[in-house]
């Protein structure tokens, strides 16, 4: 076990776990606030929405940001999870009393069903590239919700009457799910499998030539992402009733994609923040604008998105961004600390652990006249 401890020390960095530790800290604070009676019912409802949005955004980021394939059918997987999960929960709620266990089982079932469909869709679709894959996944999302619309056991066009979980408690379960999803995804990204996935994104041809099984990894990522989307769907199904097919339209897939793009493709932390903010903005606009102003909701939402995207990316705002970015604040503090104490990098020390059999100087500087240089390898050749 000592070996494990030292290996763990070598690999571990705090930045690897900062995202889920932050979520965990936020959750603890929220639980305390809730127990103190500060949080209203609508706020706990919002928290559940934030939780499933984060799961959706992070899991889509796995496909779009890390694998580099555009999927527009994420709401379809969520739809599967929501319907199947609620249906399953309703069916077993008679035999199992504990609502929490029912919810957890429903999450697993909803996730697995979405995962299976991820496999069925992914197998043919992942042979396609770029735009074509986007179109196929888009069609998939539409097919799924229309199938549920026409199935009578799922309530047809009226939507499925799910049994909502207690809103005051659902967000805790949802955030625990978020933390588990974050741990799994971040661990995966930092493993050799994650490296293979990002290698496929960077250069698929080279990845193949390096012996990476591209089909396997594409399918694997697609299925994993579908699984998490299914879990998010189950949370949604327990948050609201009825589960209505209109929710999972193309627009919703795009909204998840917006969260990913806004947060930065390939950035888990960014996805978390973007998902949180977009959900809050949506919620605020929905609850604050009433009467005639309600018609302006989408307009204001779109305007906010445009402003944020421009501010995030336009070169003109570069100076402002840099001045107020967290990174620059940390860096300037580091620079101040570095002045007071000279830091010795341990990098060079690390290199001494590896024995090298060859002498770099002789190989890498052929300009040197080898015969003159006092060198073992040359004298051996002479013999």
């Amino acid at each position: 076990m000592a070996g494990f401890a030292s290996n763990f020390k070598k690999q571990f960095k705090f930045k690897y776990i900062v995202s889920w530790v932050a979520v965990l800290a936020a959750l603890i604070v929220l639980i305390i606030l809730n127990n103190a009676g500060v949080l209203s019912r609508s706020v706990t409802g919002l928290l559940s929405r934030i939780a499933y949005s984060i799961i959706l955004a992070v899991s889509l980021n796995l496909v779009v940001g890390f694998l580099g394939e555009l999927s527009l059918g994420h709401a379809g997987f969520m739809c599967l999870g929501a319907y199947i999960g609620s249906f399953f929960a309703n069916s077993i709620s008679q035999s199992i009393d504990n609502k929490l266990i029912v919810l957890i089982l429903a999450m697993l079932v909803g996730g697995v069903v979405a995962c299976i469909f991820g496999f069925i869709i992914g197998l043919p679709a992942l042979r396609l590239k770029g735009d074509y894959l986007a179109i196929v996944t888009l069609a998939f999302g539409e097919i799924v919700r229309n199938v549920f619309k026409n199935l009578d056991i799922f309530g047809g066009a009226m939507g499925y009457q799910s049994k909502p979980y207690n809103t005051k408690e659902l967000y805790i379960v949802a955030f625990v799910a978020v933390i588990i999803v974050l741990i799994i995804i971040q661990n995966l990204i930092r493993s050799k499998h994650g490296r293979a996935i990002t290698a496929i994104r960077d250069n698929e041809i080279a990845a193949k030539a390096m012996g990476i099984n591209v089909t396997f990894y594409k399918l694997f990522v697609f299925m994993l992402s579908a699984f998490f989307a299914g879990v998010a769907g189950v949370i949604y199904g327990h948050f609201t009733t009825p589960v209505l097919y209109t929710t999972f339209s193309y627009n919703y897939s795009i909204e998840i994609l917006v969260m990913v793009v806004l947060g930065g493709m390939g950035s888990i932390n960014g996805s978390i923040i973007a998902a949180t903010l977009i959900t809050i903005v949506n919620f605020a606009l929905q609850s604050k604008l009433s009467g005639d102003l309600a018609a302006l909701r989408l307009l204001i939402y779109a305007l906010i998105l445009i402003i944020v995207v421009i501010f995030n990316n336009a070169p003109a705002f570069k100076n402002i961004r840099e001045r107020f970015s967290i990174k620059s604040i940390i860096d300037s503090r580091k620079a101040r600390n570095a002045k007071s104490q000279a830091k010795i990098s341990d990098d060079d020390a690390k290199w001494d652990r590896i024995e090298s059999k060859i002498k770099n100087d002789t190989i890498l500087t052929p300009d040197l006249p080898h015969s003159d240089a006092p060198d073992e390898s040359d004298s051996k050749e002479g013999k």
Partner: protein
Amino acid sequence: MSDLVLETKNLGITFGGLKAVQDVNLKVKKNELYGLVGPNGAGKTTVFNMLTGVYQPTTGTFYLDGEELKGKSQEQINHKGIARTFQNIRLFNNMSVIRNVLVALHNQPEFKYSPFAGMFHTPKYYDTEVRMRDKAKEILRVFGLEKERNNLACNLSYGTQRKLEIARALATNPKLLLLDEPAAGMNPNETAELMEIVRFIRDEFNLSVLLIEHDMRFVSGLCDEVTVLNFGTTLAQGDTKTALNDPEVIKAYIGG
């Protein structure tokens, strides 16, 4: 089996009606440096693409260590022991230098762990990752890239990128290394250095090298044998000096 590492038998491919490559018979021995030369468009890279499974040959077949590899996928061929570099460099540009090599170590049997272990970071994960990193550093050290290991691959100079590409190919532990124009875009010093590197890896990693190159000084200084291609057919084959001085070859290059 004999000491042949790679043997191709009447290897050929047609695109539509165009016979891009016909009847190429290569015999690469163990520890041999073998050159594949020819004017532009002669089909050299197409031969490489067939040998690595990018294209499936329409006629003929090829063997690595006596095992037929025709019809296998790119990753399977890589597992069997053929690694390659590309004419236009194809590094994982947004990754650090060491990650590039780590990706190539992916399939080594000693570094295997399941996606499950990757997702939950079992002790096996930590153990394997540390050993992988050590191995990657060792490979980088051979190429004098250890100081660059945390830089992004796209920020390296051209010659260094070429070196990294070779390092990455070597990390897959091949029996046969295919180098597609390794000296392209290098200055004379870098070319000389590259020659030393190619010889060194041949000895150190105990493999055969099949290389495409236009720089004739590079080829004649390095290769034991060459095959000259022109319009997809073999023009001359054999000992480097004799083959390159063949009047037909000179005619194909200079014209006339």
